[in-house]
């Protein structure tokens, strides 16, 4: 089966700035694929090359098996593009904008009318359709832009940071709509630097950092790959540092504990990375009991996409650790770096 989007060894530089370096990933038909990465990672450049707005320096970019370089027009017919910054002509009404868009995709006038009405209704825009887009709120603008991107029933809808700057309610409307779109068989490619957005929506994702793909897979695959679960332990509500140190030394020697960090800013709580298993918590409690320390609270969780992101973008992990955990275990850090 032909991939909906196939990008192989894409390279793109602007002057001396390398925006994208050897990026490769494939999006399969009918899935929501997320491109996750911090601002400036190269997500938008990748999208621009895909949508025929920028010419790749090297590499292969295909939509439904069609090369963007060889047949850009056929690619444009199959793609819907919703840019990060919604660009509407504020003097046109929503309906007029959609009519313009329909003509640019060469829909017949009766087909256009029908599609426009359907999409206005689906996106809850009917009562705003005949108002000038200059009066729209951010959420309305985004919904109108979504409708515009879908008028010609594209095979792949590409959304660049679809919910940046939106209020929570609008964000959920967009998420819900994208899920419906997937159910109907449309392939969706979204970029985001919101972890929870990709976690909530994407079947698979690629993490991009500084122009390079550094991880690819389904959210749960990536989390599993990180290995251990996370355990947050408080000896007391506010533990003295000495006690926390003592606990760490003991716990570090347990066979299933990979790493222990004391978090000064959280009342000297202990953050542990442990091998997945059911008995870790009770064993930790027992160990503490043996040296006469109580347990105020203890909780175990799977790594979040947040942890994946931090682990994958080492730089951010460091920053986050510096900010969050006052004391760092250099030995354990070294151990982690070598993994």
């Amino acid at each position, binding site marked *: 089966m032909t991939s909906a989007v196939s990008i192989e060894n894409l390279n793109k530089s*602007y002057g001396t700035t390398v925006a994208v370096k050897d990026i490769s990933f494939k999006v399969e038909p009918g899935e929501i694929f997320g491109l996750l990465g911090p601002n400036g990672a190269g997500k938008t450049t990748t999208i621009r090359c895909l*949508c*025929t*707005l*920028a*010419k790749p320096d090297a590499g292969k970019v295909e939509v*439904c098996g069609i090369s963007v370089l060889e047949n850009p*027009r*056929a690619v*444009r*017919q*199959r*793609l819907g*593009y919703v*840019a990060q*910054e919604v*660009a*509407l*002509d504020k*003097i*046109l009404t929503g309906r*007029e904008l959609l*009519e*313009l*868009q329909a*003509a*640019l*995709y*060469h829909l017949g006038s009766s087909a256009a009318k029908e*599609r426009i*009405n*359907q*999409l206005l*209704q*689906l996106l809850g825009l*009917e009562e705003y359709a005949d108002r000038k887009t200059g009066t729209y709120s951010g959420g309305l603008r985004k919904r109108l832009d979504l409708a*515009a991107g*879908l008028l*010609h*029933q*594209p*095979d*792949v809808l590409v959304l660049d940071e679809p919910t940046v700057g939106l209020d929570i309610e609008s964000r959920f409307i967009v998420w819900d709509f994208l899920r*419906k*779109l997937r*159910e*109907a*068989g*449309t*392939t969706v490619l979204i970029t985001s630097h919101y972890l929870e957005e990709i976690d909530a929506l994407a079947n698979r994702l690629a993490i991009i950092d500084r122009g390079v793909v550094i991880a690819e897979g389904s959210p749960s695959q990536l989390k599993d790959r990180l290995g251990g679960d996370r355990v947050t332990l408080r000896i007391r509500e506010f533990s003295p540092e000495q006690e926390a140190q003592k606990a760490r030394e003991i716990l570090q020697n347990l066979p299933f504990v990979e790493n222990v960090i004391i978090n000064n800013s959280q009342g000297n709580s202990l953050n542990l990375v442990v091998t997945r298993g059911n008995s870790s918590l009770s064993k930790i409690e027992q160990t503490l009991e043996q040296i006469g320390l109580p347990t105020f609270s203890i909780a175990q969780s799977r790594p979040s996409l947040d942890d994946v992101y931090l682990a994958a973008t080492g730089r951010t992990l460091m920053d986050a650790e510096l900010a969050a955990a006052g004391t760092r275990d250099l030995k354990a850090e070294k151990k982690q770096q070598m993994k």
Partner: protein
Amino acid sequence: MTQTITPSNLKATLSPKTIVRDRVEESTNPVAEFIQETLALTKRLFIQLQRRPSTLIAGVIQPMMWLLLFGALFYNAPQGLFGEEMSYGKFLAPGVIVFTAFSGALNAGLPVMFDREFGFLNRLLVAPLASRFSIVAASTIYIISLAFLQSLAIVGAAALLGAGLPNAAGLGAIAAIVFLIVLGVTALSLGLAFALPGHIELIAVIFVTNLPLLFASTALAPLSFMAEWLQVIASLNPLTYAIEPIRYIYLNNDWAISSVVMEAPWGSINFGGVLSILLAFDALVLLLIQPLLRRRFS
């Protein structure tokens, strides 16, 4: 329109065309598609004009002021200075017609530049346009309509000021000449809108081209008044090739394609020659901007 969304038509609405139908209809008629997209883009410009008419109002007031002020400036010039039986008003009207059309066309790139800066142009560039020349065509249709309205106002005002009124054939010829100069300059301005980094640069270019091209043409004074070097420049200026035939029409009711309408330093040029030069100018500009339209934006 009240219609309930059932899961089945929800699916039909949101599914890709390739799933709903067997295959995507291949593009049928590129000419029809070009016309469709051009008309849609033109409609947008006219909706903008209708809801924000100040450009048009200013565009009609300005040439009236030119006529009035320049006419008054040379009011006491010696009789016959601009040729036998030619008042300055009569001399000036063709210059104002062409200069007004030219200024409008020179500004044609600005809305496109703003579309580029606001990201609206991306909407056009990711769409499967039959040809990006539809963007040029739409702007040309829009600017030419404005130029016709302005020219009509100028011709009327000039007639009231005593410059006389060309006959129907003459008016038709004026329209054709205005069309040719607007087409070339509009295309040039759009090319700049695609090539320059931003609207500041475009406005700078418009600034340094607009008035110098006016003064280096025969709009305000005949070639014979000018220093020789300026005569050469004015004879290279496309505006001159639009002004002189219109001036000839204003002066002679019985003009023909073979009528000599201007005396360039290198010889006399007839009506047909002037039209050919304007056509060649248009063709050259359209050819020049082609790579700019095709270029993908970085």
